[in-house]
């Protein structure tokens, strides 16, 4: 095992009693690493992830009034009429009124105007699974598999964090790297080394239960199975103790620093807790909140007026929470550090059912939010095509579900690369493949202030374009460089990698071949800087 900079601390030993034999006193039992010293986690960026579990009805969130006739046909009883929807002119978008009305600071329309909100339409994966649990597992594990029965025991963030903690559990982070608010630790944060985060409901309760639990017996130095399991539990005792104190202290230091008013909604209240922890100096990198099941709107999802009922209430909850939190972060002066996104395991059927509700569907949508300095605000994707399958094969699928446009892992890659400095190798270690980032964020790191967006900037030439399949990629390297070059399909999934390694300076001209018609993205990452160009293959 590689040893890095350790912070040796014996602070938690105050729990041990004076009766300990003298040889144990003052001995260093464990190693703690400050979060900012963990390789790759040097920055102070924070990601907020909000799960809208149950299957959010995307078509009644961002209203498809670009095809009003068809929308009203699909949803005669539960539609949001044009006169109620909130129009965002710049993008010709129509938002559910509850994303704006009753939400402080102008709601999601104002966030769009100020460049703090992005909307991704048609996020999902091939062959959607319509079981809540299975589809959720795919989203949380970050693994796409045609094999519906593969069991998952690790999540995408759990794997990512675990890879950055090579000495865990001998060496543990000073503050929890990730935190789930409420419930039991979710699959997303699980890894083969154990949970890569903690679940928190109430800082005071956690403190009362966890404070003082560092084992007064030393960790084992051997590597037998017994030693390994002993040390695993030992680390959890230490973490319960250290983290319960760190969380409690941060909470108490931060709760008085809040500057915005938070609404009484569940999400708002949970984000208020998170804002207190951030304001109080907790160095947690990822916060996760799961909104439970109320998005599963099979029956009576809205009352007669479209703005009250189960689904509209949840939308108010989401918009208020995000707007309250982002306003607070701005007033407190740390809005540039935070960015986040929502997700839902699937969307809902395009046509309503007989119970004023909608059944499980596909083609979900999500929101991303952050400071305008780093978020690439706007609308991603095509407006959904609502045509019946028999009329337009590119419309709804045979089951009446929306098509997906983007592979869901692309959003994760945005956050891993731009917020946590992940390399292409790390992305591959997490997902088993790479994905083209969605492009929602600009890079934010401590050392390198880079705000590259995904453009080519004439770095490489691609010709001919369009192509019949055979084409050339040419570029010049001014010095020895680390190059990762891959082609992605239109959903953002990896088609093939054509370069991965260190290249000497000079001119390169590579012949490439793609056999199937379609649009692709050619992507070259040089020393961490990404260049992308779209190419059409037409035979």
């Amino acid at each position, binding site marked *: 095992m590689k040893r890095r900079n350790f912070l040796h601390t014996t602070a938690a030993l105050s729990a041990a009693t004076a009766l300990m*034999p003298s040889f144990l006193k003052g001995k260093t039992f464990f190693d703690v690493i400050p979060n900012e010293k963990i390789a790759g986690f040097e920055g102070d960026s924070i990601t907020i992830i909000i799960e809208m579990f149950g299957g959010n009805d995307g078509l009644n969130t961002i209203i498809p009034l670009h095809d009003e006739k068809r929308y009203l046909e699909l949803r005669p009883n539960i539609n949001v009429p044009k006169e109620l929807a909130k129009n965002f002119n710049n993008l010709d978008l129509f938002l559910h009124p509850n994303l704006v009305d009753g939400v402080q600071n102008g709601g999601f329309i104002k966030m769009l105007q100020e460049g703090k909100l992005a909307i991704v339409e048609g996020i999902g994966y091939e062959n959607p699974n319509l079981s809540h649990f299975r589809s959720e597992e795919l989203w949380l594990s970050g693994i796409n598999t045609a094999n519906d029965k593969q069991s998952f*025991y690790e999540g995408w963030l759990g794997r990512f964090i675990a890879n950055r903690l090579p000495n865990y559990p001998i060496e543990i982070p000073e503050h929890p790297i990730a935190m789930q608010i409420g419930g039991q630790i979710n699959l997303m944060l699980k890894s083969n080394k154990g949970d890569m985060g903690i679940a928190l409901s109430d800082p005071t309760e956690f403190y009362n*239960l*966890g404070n003082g639990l560092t*084992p007064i017996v030393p960790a084992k130095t051997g590597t037998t199975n*017994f030693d390994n399991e002993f040390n695993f539990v030992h680390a*959890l005792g230490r973490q319960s103790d250290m983290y*319960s104190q760190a969380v409690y202290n941060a909470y108490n230091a931060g709760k008085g620093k809040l500057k915005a008013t938070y609404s009484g909604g569940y999400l708002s209240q949970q984000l208020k807790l998170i804002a207190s922890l951030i304001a109080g100096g907790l160095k947690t990198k990822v916060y996760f909140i799961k909104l439970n099941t109320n998005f599963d709107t099979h029956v009576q999802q809205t009352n007669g007026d479209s703005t009250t009922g189960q689904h509209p209430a949840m939308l108010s909850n989401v918009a208020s929470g995000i707007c309250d939190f982002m306003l607070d972060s701005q007033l407190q002066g740390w809005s540039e550090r935070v960015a986040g996104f929502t997700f839902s395991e699937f969307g809902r059927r395009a046509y309503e059912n007989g119970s004023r509700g909608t059944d499980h569907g596909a083609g979900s949508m999500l929101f991303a939010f952050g400071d305008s300095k780093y978020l690439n605000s706007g609308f991603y994707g095509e407006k959904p095509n609502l045509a019946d399958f028999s009329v337009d094969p590119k419309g709804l699928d045979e089951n009446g579900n929306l098509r997906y446009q983007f592979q869901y892992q692309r959003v994760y890659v945005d956050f891993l690369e731009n917020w946590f400095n992940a390399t292409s190798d790390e992305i591959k270690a997490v997902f088993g493949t790479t994905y083209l980032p969605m492009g929602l964020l600009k890079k934010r790191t401590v050392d390198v202030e880079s705000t590259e967006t995904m453009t080519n900037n004439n770095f490489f030439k691609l010709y001919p374009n369009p192509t019949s399949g055979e084409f050339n990629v040419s570029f010049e390297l001014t010095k020895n460089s680390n190059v990762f070059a891959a082609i992605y399909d239109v959903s953002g999934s990896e088609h093939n990698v054509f370069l991965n390694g260190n290249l000497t300076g000079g001119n390169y001209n590579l012949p490439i071949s793609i056999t199937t018609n379609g649009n692709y993205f050619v992507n070259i990452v040089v020393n961490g800087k990404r260049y992308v160009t779209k190419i059409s293959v037409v035979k």
Partner: protein
Amino acid sequence: MDKRDFLKTLVVNHENPTMPLNEFTTPLSRKNAIHLLRRMGFGPTLTEVSSIVGKTPAEAVNMLIGANYFGPADPTADWVNTPEENPLEQIQAIKSEIEGRLNSRYAQFVDWWASQMRNDSNPAAEKFVLFLHSIWCIQYSYDTTALIPPPLLYRNNKTLRKYRLSDYKTLALNVSLDGAMILFQSLYYSNKSKPNENYMRELMELFTMGIGNYTEADIREGSRALTGWRTAAYVGEPFPFGYFETWFDSTAHDIGAKTFMKETIAAREEQDNTKDQVLEQELKGILNIMFDKRGTEISKFIANKAIRYFIYSNPASDDSTFLNELASDFKNSGFSLTTLFTKIFTSEYFYQDIIKGIQIKTPAEFIIGLEKSLNVKYTSRRTAMNALEQELYNPPNVGSWKAYRTWVNTKTFPLRVKYANEIIKLATKTEIFDLAYAIPNYQSINEFMLGLEEIFFPVTLPVETSTMNLNFLKNESKLDATTWAAGINGKTDDVYNAIVFVIKKFVQYPDFQLT
């Protein structure tokens, strides 16, 4: 590395061939007796320990396994027999009322089962039932909306108990016919026009042979053979044999020929479309084909599950020699679970020192085991086990509890300490001194401490830790090596408080979580 290789790395599966399956014939030391009771049951009482010390492993296992125990008499309570209407078909107010009753009965059922685990008379029976429940998972709350009636859960539990020592195929047959399984795995909704593939897939993937040993066509054809089975789950639905009994709806059964694993199950005439014939030729027929054609795979799959459950859950530590020989004996015995369990608990492999203390206690082992070692009864055990993330008959998904290291996290570790302290508080002077006097040479303070540690920890503590414990005991009891005997014989408050103090210290040592 391609995608397929990557997916394989997600569950590490190294093979470490080290040790053949040999019988361990040395009479049980105290240490080995405790080890056996910890793994084969939920943890020892000192009476149980003394009842098997000095016996050979074979004698002890034969005694503990409870071959003649088929379970307690049916309790007379609402949750055992009361049918309800299907809540999903009611208006909201009625639905909530029915669900309220179902939730309360579900809780009573779990309380009942957990109290069976706490029962001292059959130390291994309920551990085996729990092992089988964690393979043949059933979730009370199995979709965002649906609940399985608790009387069906009870009947499934009874089936597992009744067949826990039978051959695995007989168990498979009987669980397949359990109403809870029929409902949970959608057989209830399966019919000839639209066979539901859920159960056929899980039967092969999760319950018998594992993925990769069958084709999608096998699932489709097998599902056709399993159409027509129903259970009388709700008031207002047909119940030809009474509520909660399984029946056969011949009109829903697909009578055409099926080709399953390249074997043909012949088409039948309408007059042969009867419960008995379909059961015999199709359900049993499918199971016979599975066990005939995939016997080796089934034996390995199940033997591996038993090893992970009873020996070590870490998938990276599988011993291929031991596994292969165990699987082979299991298969050759006609898939006898008695053979499987006996071979494990009488093996040299099981009694190696490197096996002791490497398993993280499940919530059931943690709670029930502590109750047993202190001879107390903890009425909140269901609440505690739920909070520790093991809800009986409500695992997180059909793939069961993820187990192993997922049992302990920063949420459950502090709760384990909390619940342990609540349980220790239940031990009055009577229980503490009963425990103390059962320790050999308890009148020596050193021997007493070693004996106490032996009850609560799976491996001998380092001398330094033991010395620290001794200091705690001396300090709290205000006694020393020479005055200890008088103090403990006198059952003084100081001694009682000191022993409780030390046990509470134990709770925070990492190895207290291990078994």
